[in-house]
């Protein structure tokens, strides 16, 4: 079959109205033939811009050339040089603003479907039983990693490859961080994908201790002084959910997206036999426009609720990945754009019965470069609903910086760390990911984990 070189080879997906009722993965991924065909679209540029667009600098044309020849094992080796979590990244990276965003193919047509190819390689390698190889020799240096999320796992994987002894301390009962508690099953399968990728990190020699809250169970100081860790990486992730401060936010039926998603994902409340309760509204309003808002909305939809998204700017400014917004719309989620909540209304028993919103219009650009939404006076209106999910981002968790002396934080409470090597104000202590930047993406956290691993390796090579 002749293919249109201007367009991506389409990827199969579960039909929208079918998937809106289940938690199975939306995107089904490329077949071998589809992947090899898509790989022929890569121009193998001598100066590949996609690599510079990738936060962990995967040799993208390098692995795609192997896919073209059908050599998945070789393609996996190329990706493994730079990434510990390819099956995850292939699914959740915002490729359109990174590798695919700068792909030369994208100038006149559609970019190469790099994310889907990465996913194909990772999934196929897993099915073939390929496991990444650990270091042959040990350096004898001990590194403690705080948090088994994308930043921590990446940092741990890279350091283990260098021969350091790495222990990850994870607060929850399962490793994975946001990959386990935040991103839903239909976007990122837990058992089939996340747990397997974590097994691969363990195969490099990394030890993971769950149920261990650094800052409470032990402090960074005690890990370094009493437990003999030579360096520490803080990848503890985002923290407490933000609320708007509007009346009615404490009402019964108002949840943070973090709570809603943690119940459904980590605690598996979406399954009928789960012991963790989750509220399924008849009509749910999700406030916010990021990936987390889309995840919460699509979770509520699958649990059986009608779902509305309320976002104060316009479609163009939605911070969520284009694909998520597209999927959400296809599944029947209703977008109320240029709309901002002013009050959550309740019945006499304290349960949510609606949300009063005001229409917005876009004014002058603000500090973020996006046009600032301003209220249209007198445009208030009421949406009836029985559940509200607030997805407004998070503020840093105070646990670590309040229990670690000499660790500088910025005015938002984020840990101060250099971008190039993750160094903090404390010698031997490095940090990266949401704990530093505030809520961002999986891949940026991985990029930071990678940079810090390099920083830590250099630091350790200079110490006795």
């Amino acid at each position, binding site marked *: 079959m002749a293919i249109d070189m201007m367009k991506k080879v389409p990827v199969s997906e579960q039909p929208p109205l079918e998937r809106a009722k289940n938690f199975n993965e939306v995107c089904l991924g490329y077949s071998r033939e589809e992947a090899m065909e898509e790989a022929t679209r890569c121009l193998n540029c001598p100066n590949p811009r996609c690599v510079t667009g990738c936060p962990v600098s995967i040799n993208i044309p390098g692995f795609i050339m192997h896919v073209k020849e059908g050599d998945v094992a070789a393609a996996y080796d190329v990706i493994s040089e730079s990434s510990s979590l390819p099956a995850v990244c292939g699914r959740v990276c915002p490729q359109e603003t990174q590798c695919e965003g700068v792909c030369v193919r994208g100038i006149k047509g559609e970019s190469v479907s790099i994310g889907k190819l990465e996913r194909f390689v990772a999934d196929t390698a897993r099915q073939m039983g390929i496991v990444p190889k650990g270091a042959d020799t040990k350096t004898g240096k001990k590194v403690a990693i705080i948090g088994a999320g994308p930043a921590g796992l990446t940092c741990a994987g890279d350091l283990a490859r260098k021969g350091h002894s790495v222990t990850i301390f994870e607060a929850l009962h399962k490793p994975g961080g946001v990959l386990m508690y935040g991103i839903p099953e239909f976007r990122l399968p837990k058992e089939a994908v996340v747990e397997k990728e974590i097994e691969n990190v363990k195969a490099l020699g990394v030890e993971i201790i769950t149920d261990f*809250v650094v800052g409470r*169970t032990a402090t960074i100081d005690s890990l370094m002084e009493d437990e003999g860790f030579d360096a520490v990486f803080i990848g503890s992730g985002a923290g407490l959910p933000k609320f708007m401060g509007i009346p009615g936010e404490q009402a019964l039926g108002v949840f943070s997206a973090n709570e809603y998603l943690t119940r459904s994902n980590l605690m598996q409340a979406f399954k009928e036999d789960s012991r963790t*309760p989750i509220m399924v509204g008849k009509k749910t309003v999700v406030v916010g426009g990021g990936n987390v808002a889309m995840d919460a909305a699509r979770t509520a939809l699958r649990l059986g609720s009608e779902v509305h998204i309320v976002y104060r700017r316009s479609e163009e400014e939605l911070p969520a990945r284009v694909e998520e917004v597209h999927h959400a719309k296809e599944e029947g989620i209703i977008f109320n754009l240029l709309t901002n909540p002013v009050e959550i209304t309740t019945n006499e028993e304290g349960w949510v019965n609606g949300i009063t919103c005001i229409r917005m219009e876009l004014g002058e650009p603000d500090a973020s470069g996006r046009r600032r939404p301003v209220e249209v006076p007198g445009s208030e209106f009421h949406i009836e609903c029985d559940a509200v999910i607030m997805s407004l981002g998070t503020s840093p968790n105070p646990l670590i910086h309040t229990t670690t002396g000499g660790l500088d934080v910025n005015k938002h409470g984020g840990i101060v760390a250099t971008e190039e090597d993750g160094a903090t104000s404390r010698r031997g202590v490095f940090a990266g990911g949401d704990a530093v930047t505030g809520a961002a993406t999986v891949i940026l956290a991985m990029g930071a984990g990678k940079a810090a691993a390099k920083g830590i390796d250099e630091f350790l090579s200079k110490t006795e």
Partner: protein
Amino acid sequence: MFEIKKKQTLGPKVDLYVVEAPHVAKAAMPGQFLIIRIDEEGERIPLTICDYDREAGTITLVVQSVGAESTRMSFMKAGDHLADVVGPLGRPSDLIELSKEELAKKKILFIAGGLGTAPVYAQLKWLHEQGIKADCIQGARTKELLIMIDEMKEVCGNLYLATDDGSEGIHGNVTVALQQLWDEGVRYDHCVVIGPMIMMKFACQLTAKLGIPTMASMNTIMVDGTGMCGACRLIVDGKVKFACVDGPEFDGAKIDFDQAMQRARLYKTQEGRLMLKEQERETHEGGCGFCS
């Protein structure tokens, strides 16, 4: 896995568990709590810490079977294992930041309601080890629900018992008992109250009236307990606070108890259904005809 080393029944539906959890035992301080999961399917249950033994590497928990998971836990015995024990969580009591001299100057009263006796014991024991004898009003609905009386007497100055039905000690609830002591001329300048929210609300109202600075330990709904999910939020002094990282103890005069009690009802219906299923086990299906 965390082994249950010892189990002892303290009263109707109230059991004490000594659990092996060396990391938690090593770091635990009075006022903190922890989270357990019974097994891989289990809910994360926040529980107060009653005692800890750093050398033995054990922690002591007191659990009342009131919900589905605690009922399920009541079927566990010594030698069984909990899937998870994580902690200690929350901030320790403010009292531990004070020097012995500062503590000695204070006249401290604890008010323990029902199961709240367990975490109060942890604080009294710590103070006792510092050479401080604090008083305690221990209240319950009826005599059988007054737990750990002998242990409390060992670490307490004056222990005043109170029961709603008058079956033991002062006839009346803890606020009646406090008012009675106050009228007799007993004075305190610091109070810690732990128990059911409704009891803490009225105890805090009274101590505010009497001018005793009071901390109340808030047992809110929680999921992760580490400052991530926001389920434990409550209003203190008009601001949103999170019981798991900002608390669990807050200034009792500033807590919006009515809102906290309302939020505690959030999952009651779902929990209740699950508990019925748990209690009735195989006989449950089809009982009332409402669930399939």
